[in-house]
């Protein structure tokens, strides 16, 4: 769910594809302002969706069109999603998808996300599968594949609805509301989903700088699912948190644990790298 990154990429792409106007400096200034507005909205989005929405609305409704327009619309739809107006978000993304262009892929992905959030996993799967086959080199392709994998793997599991709901609520900043779902998942979902839900929560908390919560979640995950599919991710996440807290030894030990316990995991080399780095750090004082 890398919305800011996406917007940047789209902006850059669009900017590079459109020739700069040479007619008037004023126009250029205006375009610059609009672009900046979009950028500001992107920064605002994580903290104040409403403000970002207001800011973007002006850009979206402005008669001027430029490379900022589609990123603005995408961001605007995202704002609507975060504000709970799913229909609006859907219509915006649908419009973008129909319009085609570089944003269409993103819009379609977001629509699939909406389907996922709304619990229509089959439809989401269908859209995602089609999307995945469309352009594997797209910057969102791995997100598409990740979500598709989830939809397919847990399609038969009741917990998937919970997790999708929890993810939506977390995205909308309603962590408290999401907790119920997380709790339900941790307690009642099948082990795979339960483990994954813990990981997701931990990562969210880590992103939100709730390090203790995140650490607790990681530890819980490690404790409950020592042979889980995401155990290495948990170890690495936990180790990273230790490192952020300055507990180098602890972090090192955690990395080492991950490496020793799962030397053949895809992230084992990453753990090894961290170990080397931390050892070097420790030795260098």
């Amino acid at each position, binding site marked *: 769910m890398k919305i800011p990154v996406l917007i940047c990429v789209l902006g850059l792409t669009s900017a590079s594809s459109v020739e700069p106007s040479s007619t008037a400096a004023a126009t250029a200034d205006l375009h610059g302002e609009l672009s900046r507005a979009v950028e500001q909205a992107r920064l605002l989005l994580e903290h104040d969706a409403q403000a970002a929405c207001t800011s973007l609305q002006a850009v979206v409704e402005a008669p001027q069109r430029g490379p900022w327009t589609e990123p603005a619309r995408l961001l605007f739809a995202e704002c609507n999603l975060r504000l709970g107006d799913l229909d609006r978000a859907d219509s915006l993304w649908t419009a973008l998808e129909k319009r085609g262009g570089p944003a269409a892929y993103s819009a379609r992905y977001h629509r699939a996300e909406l389907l996922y959030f709304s619990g229509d996993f089959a439809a989401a799967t269908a859209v995602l*599968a089609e999307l*995945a*086959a469309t352009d*594997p*080199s797209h*910057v969102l*392709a*791995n*997100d598409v*594949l*990740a979500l*598709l*994998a989830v939809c*397919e*793997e847990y399609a038969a599991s009741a917990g998937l609805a919970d997790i999708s709901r929890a993810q939506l609520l977390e995205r909308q900043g309603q962590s408290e509301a999401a907790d119920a779902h997380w709790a339900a998942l941790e307690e009642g979902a099948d082990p795979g989903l339960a483990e994954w839900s813990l990981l997701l929560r931990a990562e969210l908390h880590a992103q939100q700088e709730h390090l203790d919560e995140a650490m607790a979640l990681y530890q819980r995950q490690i404790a409950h699912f020592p042979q889980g*599919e995401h155990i290495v*991710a948990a170890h690495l996440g936990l180790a990273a948190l230790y490192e952020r807290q300055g507990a180098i030894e602890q972090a090192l030990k955690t990395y080492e644990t991950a490496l020793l316990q799962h030397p*053949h*995991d*895809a*992230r*084992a*080399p*990453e753990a*090894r*790298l961290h170990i080397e780095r931390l050892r070097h750090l420790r030795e260098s004082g």
Partner: protein
Amino acid sequence: MDHSSLSPLLTHLAALRRRALGLTICSALALALAAGLMSVLLWVLLEALFFFSPPWRTGLGVLALLATGGVLAFALKRHLPVLLSQHRFALFVERRCPPLQQRLISALELSDTAPSFHSPALLAAVRERATALLRTANPAQILDRRPLYAYLRLLGGAAAVVLLCGALFGNDLVQAAQRCAHPLTAYERPPRTLITVQPGNLEIIKGDDATLQVHFAGDKPRRARIERRPSAEAPYQTEELVVDRADSVAYTFPQVQRSFRYAIAVGDDRSPEYEVRVIDPPAVKRLRLHYQYPAYSQLPDRIEEEGGDIQGLPGTRVALEIAANKPLSKATLVLDDTLSIAAQLDGATARVAFQIDRPGAYHITLVDRKGATNRDPIRYAIQVREDQKPEVAIVDPGRDSDLPESLKVLLKAEASDDFSVEEIALVYRVNNGSEQRRALPINPSTELRTSASSVESSKPQREVLISYIWDLSAANLLPEDRIYYHLEALDNNQVSGPQKGQSRQYVLRFPSLYELYSEADQAQEEQLSSLDELAAEGQAHQEYIERVRRELLKSEELSWEQKKELESTLAAEAERARAVEELAAELEKTIDSMQDEGTGSEELLDKLDHIRELMGDIATPEMQQALADLQKAASNPDPRVLAEALKRFNEDQQAFQQRLDRTIALLEQVRTEQQLRAIVEQAAELARRQSQINRELADGQSGLRQQLQEGSLQRDTERLAEQLQELSDSTAEQNPALSEQLAHRAEDVENKALSERMRQMVRQMRAKSPGEAQQTGQALAADLDALAEDLQQMQDEYRAAEKDQLSRELRRAMRALVQLSQRQESLFADARAQDQFALMQGTSQVVERIAAVGRRTLALTPNLSATIGYALREMHDAAQRLGQRDVQGARHFQRKAMRYLNETVLLLRESLDNLAKAQTPSAFAEAMQQLLSLSEQQSQLNQASEQAMGQMPGPGLQQQIARLSAQQQGLMQALDEIARSLRGHRGAQQRVQAIQDEMRDVLADLQRGRLTQRTRQNQKRIYQRMLDASRSIHSRGFDEKRRSITATDQPYAGPTTLPADRGQTPDLWREALRQALAGPYPEEYRALLRRYYDQIYQDLQAREAP
């Protein structure tokens, strides 16, 4: 004077005198003759000796005459005077007859004198006395005959001398006499040597020797000359002949070719010139052979005019027309120098005919009208071309094979004969039973198909192709039975009887399930073993090449020995690649065999087919190219080039090795599955066989057959237990859970004492305790059913567990790759070389994991490894760029790496999909059931189309076609559904696709409102394909008909004689099926009949099952 008294005296005296005269003349003549003879003889002798000239000869002749005349004259002169004078004669008489005492003379003299001087009386008296005395005197005393006799003797002597001389010197004397006879004739003096040549002129046959006998008379020469010339005008050519004073010599002119003239000359003599005339012998100028072949050969008559060698079939009549160079008096054909056949003559032409029966020789003897025979007649060969035996070969199966499930064997054979194949018979025996013979009619109207070249029986059928469906379903065969069969072909030889040709003998085996599975397993084991060896070899090569590369980098030079060793290793590598391809071909055969025998499920066969393809792809063109490059580089003086080539090759070889390892692992996996399946199938088979025996027991049959079957069952049950244990042992390491379950089942079989109970059942049957046997049998059947069910369940669980595990593995790999992709994306902004490198290593970890999955399943999409390989390559390049602090350049590769990672995820997803769709037995069977159902619908549709074709064109027909089209469309949709449900069953899918293609054509026709013969044909084909497909697929699990025959041979010490029915129960249903199939039904209907009866069998078994 009285003369009357004198007269008698005178008379007497005159008579006496005449007699004396005569005597005298005769004597004189005798003397003269004797003298003449001697004179002439002397004359002739002298002439012979001296060859006088005519004067001399005449003179001598005269002398001879004179001498003769002189002698005569002398003789006459001496006696004639006495005789001519009476007085002197009278005196002569008185001297010879003293008593007369002058009385006679006196009488005579006195009578002439005057009477005066004598007394008449006295005179008379004297006369009388003289007369009387004369009368009484002996004339012989008076006339001396002795001189006559003496002269006669002299004459005789002379004659004797003449004869003697004649005898001694006959020729000479005759010639001399001839000359003396013509004394005045001047004769040429004959030579001293007289030459006589015999036969002188002669006529000989050209080339013969001309032999002469030359006689020499007179002086015998030492030498003679033979003078010879070709013609009277030509000069002589002389040749010396050594005679050496022989009386005669023989001389031969050898091998005379031309006529000539000759003479023999010696000294002063020369024979006349003779002629040797050469005549040509009779000869064959031309031969004309008229062959009349025996009727059976149906060969047309033939005339041959070149040569005289005869070549033909026994019984061929050959008429010879012999044209000679001259008119003949006789011609004979001589066979083998013994039997002569006289020819009919017509001038210079002779005709003879005979029949050839055996090889030999003949020659022709000719005699011309002069009696000359042909010399050295040519000996011509008589070659009898034996009627060849027909040749017959079974081309299909053309090898020892297993009986198909239908128990019908399609025999295809080719028979040929030099004239005509008259009969073909199938000769077979079951095991060691008596031989049975079945004539195969070579008539196209029967079930036997013949080629177009052999259609009418009246025409010669030199080549016959037959195709015969040999139905062995009525043979009551038991598993493990062997049928030894061959074909015999007879030709139409009516002379020496039909010749018989025989094909090679083949064996048809009615295999038991155990045999079939064992063979398939063995084949797989061998292939695995070969692959293992290749893999080990490859490993060694790989290590060696790497070692060489390192050494090369170190020393920058390879020794000659090292180079040679490297070349040898490379050659071995090339060979290894070929060996893998060969193994792929062998595997294909195994697959075909399993397909034919029904020992592989569709899934297994598909897997094996996949593995075969993998094997075919092990040696990639890239690797081959790398090998070629390396071989080329080996001769490059630059060590760096070689080191680089070695490196490249090693990489490719590593990939080769990995593919090989994967293939081996997959084969092992499939083999385990196959073994498991075999066990499950065999258990089910055992249960069915036990049920069958139980049913027969329930029907009151408790004969030898049932005992044998139960015995066979017992043995197979023991085998099953062994197989369970073996499979348990072999899977202990690979799959402990499965191994444990198998061991548990093996124990079950042991604990339940199935084998012992089966023996007990046999004993009970032998002891005529059917009730007890039945009870035991039912318990056994129940246990076997339970075992079969249990094993089936175990197999299902094993499959499900395998699939589940593989799915989890794939999902884990997918997740890992998605994370890697996301991580790769995160590195776009904040990139360090070591991070990128770690990412690449992580990806390699996933690659390993996927490879591990790939060794257990074929569900992975083919280009998966290539795609992830690209990702690794891009990551490597990105890491390199990052190491060079080229962040922008690295980003390009990072993006590409991410793309490939995503594509890999997609491919994994596809693989997962494949895995999910792979073989679900129940779904597969369901699809096949649907296909069978569709085939019946198609059959009905075909019949409807047939009826529609009979309708007159018009709106009615169009409506009917529209209806048909709609129905066909419906079938098409149903078939599409089946095709979709068969995804993952490649073989079945292909067959269904073929039906779809046909159906599309039919549908296109019907939708255009066309219903033609072609449409009908297509519809028929669709139906046939449907049946074939369903049968083929269905047969993979052994159809019911095949299962119904279960017993195998078992050593048995029971009753020594067989019951009258040989313990066999007539199979009523089979008989009914056979009768039904014998009816005049179309093939479609037959198929339905078969299915109908199969269904009855199934129902019966289901009903009778305990």
